[in-house]
C-alpha cells in the first residue's frame, strides 16, 4: 500500500461526510443508535472497524491521536490502529491522555479526567443493550421508540433475586438524559461514573452492526439500578503494585504457578505518569 494511494485518514470524503452526518444525528439524539453504511475496512470486523471509521471521520491534520486497548497503549491492536492512522493520516500520535485531542479506546475510559475539546471514540461490538434479552433488531428498535425498558429492569431484578447482586460486570446498561437505554460498550462498570457530565465528546462506533451513537459534553448518564440496590462501581480491592494507586482500575497478572499474582493499573499512561511523579507500589523495582 502506498500511502498516497488513499485519501487522508483512508476513507474517501463522501464516506466521511456520511459518517459525520450519522455522528451529528447521534449527538442531537444522545443515546440513540443511528444506522450508518459501515464500510469494509482493511482490518477485520471485531477489531474496531466502527471506532476506526468514526476516528477517520473526525480526525484533522492538526489532531494528536491516542489509541488504547484494555487501557494500554502498547497492546497489539492499539499499536496496529495507531500505526494505521499515523500512516494514512500522518497525524501526530501520543500516549499521554492529556496531550491527545482524539482518543480511540476499546474497553476502558482513561483514569485521567478528560477535558473540553477532546473526543473519546469507543469501539463497540454489540451496540444494542437489549440484544441478549431480545435477539431481533426489528423488536429492539420498537422497544426503544416506545421507551419500553421493562424487560431490562426485570433482568436486573432477577439477577438480584438469584445472586443478591446485579450480575453485570461490564457493558453495564445506562440511561441517557432520562430517555434512551444505551450500551456503554464493554467497559468495566468501574468506568460507568466517568460517562456522566463528561467535558469531552463521546462517540461510539459499531462497524459490523452498522450503528453510531454519541454523548455530547456534559450529558447526564445514569447506570440502571434500584433504590434499595444502588449501582456500585467495583474494582479489585488492592493498590496498584507499580504506582500504588488506589483509585484506578486494575489488571490481575499471574506471576508464577504457585498462586502468585499482582495487581497493576490497566491504564498504562496513568500508571507511568504516577511513577514518574515518584509514586511506588509494593512490587515496583
Amino acid at each position, binding site marked *: 500500500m502506498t500511502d498516497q494511494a488513499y485519501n487522508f485518514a483512508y476513507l*474517501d470524503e463522501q464516506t466521511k461526510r456520511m459518517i459525520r452526518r450519522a455522528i451529528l444525528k447521534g449527538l442531537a439524539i444522545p443515546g440513540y443508535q443511528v444506522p450508518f453504511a459501515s464500510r469494509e475496512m482493511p482490518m477485520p*470486523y*471485531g*477489531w474496531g472497524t466502527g471506532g476506526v471509521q468514526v476516528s477517520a471521520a473526525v480526525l484533522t491534520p492538526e489532531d494528536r491521536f491516542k489509541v488504547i486497548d484494555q487501557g494500554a497503549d502498547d497492546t497489539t491492536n492499539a499499536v496496529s490502529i495507531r500505526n494505521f492512522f499515523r500512516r494514512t493520516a500522518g497525524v501526530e500520535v501520543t500516549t499521554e491522555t492529556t496531550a491527545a485531542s482524539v482518543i480511540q479506546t476499546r474497553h*476502558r475510559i482513561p483514569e485521567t479526567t478528560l477535558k473540553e475539546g477532546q473526543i473519546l471514540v469507543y469501539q463497540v461490538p454489540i451496540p444494542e443493550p437489549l440484544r441478549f434479552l431480545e435477539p431481533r*433488531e426489528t423488536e429492539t428498535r420498537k422497544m426503544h421508540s416506545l421507551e419500553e425498558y421493562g424487560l431490562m429492569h426485570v433482568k436486573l431484578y432477577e439477577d438480584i433475586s438469584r445472586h443478591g*447482586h446485579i450480575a453485570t460486570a461490564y457493558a453495564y446498561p445506562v440511561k441517557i438524559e432520562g430517555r434512551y437505554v444505551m450500551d456503554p460498550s464493554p467497559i468495566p*462498570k468501574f468506568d460507568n461514573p466517568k460517562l456522566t457530565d463528561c467535558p469531552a465528546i463521546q462517540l461510539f462506533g459499531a462497524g459490523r452492526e452498522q450503528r453510531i451513537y454519541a454523548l455530547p459534553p456534559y450529558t447526564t448518564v445514569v447506570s440502571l439500578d434500584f433504590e434499595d440496590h444502588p449501582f456500585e462501581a467495583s474494582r479489585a480491592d488492592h493498590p496498584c503494585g507499580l504506582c500504588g494507586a488506589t483509585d484506578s482500575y486494575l489488571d490481575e497478572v499471574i506471576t508464577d504457578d504457585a498462586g502468585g499474582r499482582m495487581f497493576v493499573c*490497566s491504564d498504562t499512561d496513568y500508571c507511568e505518569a504516577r511513577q514518574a511523579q515518584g509514586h511506588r507500589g509494593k512490587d515496583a523495582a
Partner: protein
Amino acid sequence: MYVAVKGGERAIDNAHAWLAEERRGDPSVPELSIAQIREQMTLAVNRVMAEGSLYDPDLAALAIKQARGDLIEAIFLIRAYRTTLPRLGNSRPVETTAMACDRRISATFKDLPGGQILGPTFDYTHRLLDFKLAAEGEPPQDAPQRPPEAGDVPHVTGFLNREGLIEEAPADDTPPPDLTREPLELPAERALRLQALARGDEGFVLSMAYSTQRGYGRNHAFVGELRIGAVSVEMDIPELGFAIEIGDITLTECETVNQFTGSKTEPPQFTRGYGLVFGQTERKAISMALVDRALRWEELGEDFTGAPAQDAEFVLSHADNIQATGFLEHIKLPHYVDFQSELELVRKLRREVAERAEAANTSRQEAAE
C-alpha cells in the same frame, strides 16, 4: 519482578515477516503465479469473486495467493479493496437469455428448446483420486467441440408461464438497494435479500438450503433450469447517447420451480426461487434459489413455521462470512479488563455463598447445643 508487557510493535513486525515466509513455503518449490491460480484454481477464484462482490479473476487470484489459500481471508482482501473503488456508474441489467451457455440443464423437462448442455461438470465423474495428475504430465486431450448455436436460449420458466402455471415475475425497473452503500434495514425486500444471499457465505447458504430440503421450511424445489456462461455487460454512455458493451462476465443462474398448493391470497401454481452468482458457482446458485424461495413465505401468504431459512432477519444477519469471521475471531483479542470484572464478581458471589453456608452451620450448632 514483573515487567509490563512491551514490544507489541516489534512482535507485529516479526509476526508479519514469519507469515510472509510461511506463505511462500519451501523456496525450492517454484512459486505459484497469479495466472496459474486463475487458470487452475478457477472455482476458488469464482467463489472469491462472488462473495467478494468484485468481478476480477486476476485480483481474486492474487488475493488467494496472499491469503495462502484461505478463501474467506481472500474474500476479505477483495472486499476491503472493493470498498475503496469509485463508482463510475451502473451497467444495464445483464440479459441471461442471451447467455453463451457452457452448461444448461433442466431437471423438469427431458428436452426443451436450446437443449440440455452438460458442460464442464463434476456431476458424473467418479470421485477417484487421479494419480496421473500428481505426475504433472501432458495437458489433457482437447475435448470434442460442436459449433455454438446461434440465437438466445429461452428460460424454462417462460414455457410454464404461457399456461399460467407459474407465478408471474413482471419486469421491474426499480433501482435495487445497495447493501454496500446503505445499512441493512429490515424487513428487507426481495431485491435486497437476493443481494445479501449472492455475497453470502457459500457454506451458510448451502446449509440453510439443505435445511429446507429436510423439512425446516420445505418448499419442494425442482431445478427448472441451471445455466452457466458468459453474458455481456452493457453500459449507457451519456456522451454517446447509447449503450456499449464493456466486457463479458461469467454467471451461474438457477431458477427453481416450486410446488405450491395455493394460499388465502394466491391460486395453486408453481412458484419461483432465484439464484444468480458470479462465475461457475452452481452449488451456491442452487442454494441461493432455495433460500430465496423459503424467504418468500410472507408475500405468498404461506405460514411462518419457525424454520430458520424462513426467517429473513436471521438469514440476512448471519450470511456474511466477513462479518461472521471477524466477530468470531475477535474473541482472541485481549479481554483482560472485562475478564477481570467478571473475576471480581464471581469471587464476590462465591464469598457470599460461603459466608451464608458458614452462618447457617453456626446457627445449627448453636441450636444443637
